């Protein structure tokens, strides 16, 4: 039975104008209503930063003792607490892991915004004492289902593999599947990897992978925080069906010049940061220098990969120029090359470039707004040489302008909105075996706007309702406009437990040319959805519970059901040049995710389990895609010995991935020349495959161990790490070569070390 066809709300799509108007009117009605009954209230607003570097501290805890109210800073280090009783002495406590907590006595004036700038002092890294947080109070009614907020320092204590990699760290989250040890590419809740949006600050990065996709091209040293939506993401995010990974970069040290150098078995890295007049800069670069480690990922086969990435950012904030404003210019570049030096083999090269100008403004009222002008481009090329493969050349260029605002009402409710104009050009040059090439790319403009209202005035209820209307689409068939309604709810029925749910419709106009059965994808060329297909769309239904039985223990349980329609599938039955390259397919994914965290110094334990069912329907055939791993368990254990010593262990288990088995051979008639007498002499063995992905590889499991030592001598900090990857040398099967039956395993037991020096 094709569930997707049965359940997908065509009527909703068809009545998009009505729905959008309804949502907008509802938001306007609610927002005007909430302004009617107002007692004199004030607003407490603040910015929390590191006292040494001035770097914003994301997700720090802010707690008003007398009101028993808490908040978290956002990814820029800002927080707003509306509806604060005026003319009262209030004790505001600010805390953040690894920093000394501070308390302030503040008095808020009625109808005024009280600004608080907080600088927390980092605790010497060798000291054991770590402040406890007030996180539980802060999350009372946050509509954050399926959202994982990750401060980069939280990842540093886990086994880092060869080196810390954000994408690989995501793979420890429930609901996130990996393509194996050999790939940092990730699959979220039964969707393909091209349905994941990767934003570096506000800029889309199209192929953020190095070296056959083994590592991500975003150097964690330039990252301040990460927000990761596994689904149900709110209206400010668009253009993808499955997930959003928003990487927020660091601003650089505002107070002092500093330098970091680090060396792993794979790369050498350098980072410089420091103050400039009224601002700061940061400059980081990373380059690989050896393929020793890469060989381990490839069954000891050489991988002549050469890559680097560069990041630069300038911040400027001068009240004499523009009060309470911040200007940021950032640039990112990554380049990869696989040069085999053998004409019988293909060569590859690809690069990402991104540039962003951001203007962020805090107004006198509790209003934030920002304007972004950005560009992002990707170039990828497969150079066939004399290998017999076909050449491919892909270019994507994306120019985006966006404006977002966020207003906090006295009632604590929030109104957000914004618009975005994106122009995308894609070129995909395909070569035939004659060496001729043709471009199947196109270009288009997407103009969209979003509006959402967050109902937060009751401490035990949070509702986020909104939508995005795409006035024009990049291309493709179907309706010219597309409406994406979104809604999310949190209801805390007892202080220790909350029910959460979210729902939304999502649209994607860009597709990648990818064969999901390929075990290694070097890069996936992007094109705008061809005009003969409707845009891909999805609907998410998510619900779950969050429980905090004690200050140190948290549990979450989430279930989801996701329907995908009009997925662009490479046409395996393209017999003639005039046949379409893509055909529409549909998909369904559903599952359960459980996660529990226990934190009691010096121990941190994290256990998660996910159950996933994922199906695709193409040409009337239903099958499980390669990333449909039924059961996944992740267990991590961290122990802080004090004096800068810490150790951790991570164990991953997942059901084996589906694969298509060999079901025999037959002698197939080969017609080289239509006029010859081929029927009586021209046959070759042809592989018979079982039903697609009906087989399962053996289960995957792996234990990684890590020992870290942090040394601080004055301003000099040294971070040394020793990791044992696949500690018990589990032979996890990656794939079989169908022509030889050769078994290709994933990463073997591998010790790895890295050292980072910071001055």
């Amino acid at each position, binding site marked *: 039975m094709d569930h997707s066809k049965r359940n997908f709300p065509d009527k909703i799509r068809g009545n998009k104008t009505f729905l959008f108007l309804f949502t907008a009117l509802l938001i306007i009605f609610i927002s005007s209503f909430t302004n009617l009954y107002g007692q004199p209230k004030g607003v407490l607003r603040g910015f929390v930063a590191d006292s040494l570097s001035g770097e914003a501290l994301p997700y720090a805890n802010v707690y008003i003792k007398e009101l028993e109210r808490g908040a978290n800073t956002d990814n820029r280090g800002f927080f707003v607490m509306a509806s604060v009783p005026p003319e009262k002495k209030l004790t505001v406590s600010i805390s953040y892991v690894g920093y000394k907590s501070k308390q302030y006595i503040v008095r808020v004036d009625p109808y005024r915004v009280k600004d608080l700038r907080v600088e927390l002092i980092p605790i010497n890294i060798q000291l054991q004492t770590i402040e406890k947080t007030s996180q539980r109070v802060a999350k009372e009614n946050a509509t954050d289902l399926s959202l994982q907020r990750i401060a980069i320092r939280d990842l540093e204590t886990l086994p880092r593999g060869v080196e810390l990699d954000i994408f690989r760290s995501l793979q420890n989250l429930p609901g996130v599947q990996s393509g194996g040890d050999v790939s940092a590419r990730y699959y979220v809740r039964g969707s393909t990897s091209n349905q994941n949006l990767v934003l570096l600050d506000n800029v889309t990065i199209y192929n953020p992978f190095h070296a056959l996709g083994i590592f991500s091209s975003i150097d964690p040293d330039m990252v301040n925080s990460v927000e990761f939506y596994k689904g149900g993401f709110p209206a400010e995010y668009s253009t993808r069906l499955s997930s959003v990974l928003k990487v927020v970069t660091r601003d650089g040290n505002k107070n002092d010049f500093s330098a970091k150098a680090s060396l792993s078995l794979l790369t050498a890295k350098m980072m410089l940061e420091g103050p400039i007049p009224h601002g700061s800069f940061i400059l980081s670069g990373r380059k690989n220098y050896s393929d020793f480690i890469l060989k381990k990922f490839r069954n000891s086969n050489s991988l002549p990969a050469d890559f680097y990435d560069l990041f630069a950012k300038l911040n400027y904030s001068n009240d004499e120029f523009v009060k309470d404003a911040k200007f940021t210019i950032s640039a990112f570049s990554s380049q990869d090359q696989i040069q085999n030096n053998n004409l019988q083999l293909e060569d590859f090269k690809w690069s990402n470039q991104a540039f962003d100008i951001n203007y962020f403004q805090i107004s006198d009222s509790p209003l934030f707004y920002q304007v972004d002008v950005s560009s992002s481009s990707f170039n990828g090329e497969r150079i066939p040489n004399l290998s017999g493969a*076909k050449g491919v050349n892909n270019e994507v260029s994306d120019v985006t302008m966006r404006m977002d605002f966020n207003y906090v009402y006295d009632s604590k409710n929030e109104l957000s909105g914004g618009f975005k104009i994106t122009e995308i050009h894609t070129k995909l040059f*395909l*070569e*035939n*075996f*004659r*060496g*001729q*090439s*043709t471009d*199947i790319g196109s270009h288009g403009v997407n103009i969209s706007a979003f509006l959402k209202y967050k109902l937060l005035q009751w401490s035990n209820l949070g509702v986020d309702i909104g939508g995005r209307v795409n006035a024009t689409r990049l291309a493709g068939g179907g309706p010219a406009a597309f409406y994406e309604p979104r809604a999310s709810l949190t209801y805390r029925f007892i202080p220790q437990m909350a029910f959460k749910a979210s729902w939304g419709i999502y649209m994607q106009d860009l597709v990648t*040319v990818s*064969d999901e059965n390929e075990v290694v994808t070097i890069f996936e060329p992007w094109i705008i959805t061809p005009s003969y297909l409707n845009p891909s769309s999805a609907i998410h239904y998510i619900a779950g519970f969050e429980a905090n039985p004690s200050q140190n223990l948290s549990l979450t349980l989430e279930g989801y059901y996701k329907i995908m329609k009009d997925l662009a599938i*490479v*046409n*395996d*039955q*393209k*017999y*003639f*040049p*005039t046949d379409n*390259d893509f055909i529409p397919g549909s998909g369904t994914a559903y599952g359960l995710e459980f996660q529990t965290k226990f934190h009691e110094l010096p121990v941190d334990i994290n256990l998660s389990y996910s159950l996933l069912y994922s199906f695709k329907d193409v040409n009337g055939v239903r099958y499980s895609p390669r990333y449909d791993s039924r059961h996944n368990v992740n267990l991590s254990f961290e122990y802080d010995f004090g004096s800068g010593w810490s150790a951790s262990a991570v164990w991953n288990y997942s059901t*084996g991935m589906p694969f298509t*088995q*060999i*079901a*025999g*051979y*037959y*002698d*197939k*008639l080969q*017609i080289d020349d*239509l*006029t010859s007498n081929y*029927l*009586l*002499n021209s046959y070759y*063995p*042809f*592989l*018979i495959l*079982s039903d697609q992905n*009906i*087989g399962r*590889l*053996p*289960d995957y499991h792996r234990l990684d161990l890590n020992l870290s030592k942090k040394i601080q001598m004055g301003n000099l900090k040294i971070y040394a790490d020793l990791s044992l990857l696949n500690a*018990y040398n*589990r*032979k996890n*099967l990656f794939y*079989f*070569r169908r*022509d*030889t*039956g050769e*078994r290709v*395993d994933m990463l073997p037991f591998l010790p790895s070390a890295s050292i980072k020096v910071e001055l």
Partner: protein
Amino acid sequence: MKKIVIPLLISSIVLISCEDQVNPKTDLKDITVLNCIIRGDTSVQTATLSHSYSVSGFDPYENKTDPCIKGADIKIYYNNSAYALKDTSITRVDTGRYNTPFNFYYSNNLAFINSGPISITAILPNRDILHASSFFIDPGDLYIEYKYTSPSGVQFYLPMNSQGDATYKFTWGFLHNVEYSENIYFSTEMIIYYYVLNNGQKVKYSKRVPLYYASTLGNKPIFPEIQKDINYVVYDTAAIRKSLDDISLNDPQKSNYIIEKAVLRILLLDENLAAYYSAQKTFLDEFSIRINQPDFTNITGGVGVFGVYTVKSQDLYFYDNYIQSLGYSTL
């Protein structure tokens, strides 16, 4: 305690670190393969029938047992008649893999009279039935026209002494409405037939002429493709001239070469054969994002192909003086 825990720990690590045995192969999928390409230019029609097989390893060439199926009842149905195909064998040309005779089925009395539906049914010894159908197009229903674009042309004679970028355009069409004609795929080939004198003996050869030589691709010869909804083909004069020159390349004794004629052949393929052929050839030749070679079959109850292929030919003669100007002889 240590005496228990440590061996237990070691043995458990050894146990879980062992690789799981998994077989990339599953049970043999029992598939029957029927191939039959109807040729409109002959009354002898052949078909082959075989079954799938498995090997112990991963090299299918390990299989040395001919998987042909004998004793089946195969009939072709055309023009309200049934033509039974007889079970026979011939000496195998290539015995590198199978050293038994090559088994096939044939009929030598299938005369095509006119355009019409055609089908095949194979009843296997185990009573399984394979079936496929198509449509035969009588080449007599097709006409060919010829046009020489520049300078003025001469009907049905190739004026090879012309200069410049002249092209030869051949147009074809159906003389009357023919059912199924919209599902026909066309390709063309131009072949030069010639003799070479060798010790007084004339040996016949042929040379295939490309549409043109692509100068941007290192003078790569470009040959016609299979296409639907086309009714013409254009040959470059220079390509014909170069093909003539290449006949005697590096041989100073040009007069030993006797040019007989050229033949233009319009190949008509039903959509089944076109798809089967294209799945093998177009995958390599054309612009496609597809990575894997597709597989086509139109056999109900099995795999393989039942296709129809007919040819409409047009002889093209060269001017004698032109052939002689190249140093060649004429008949």
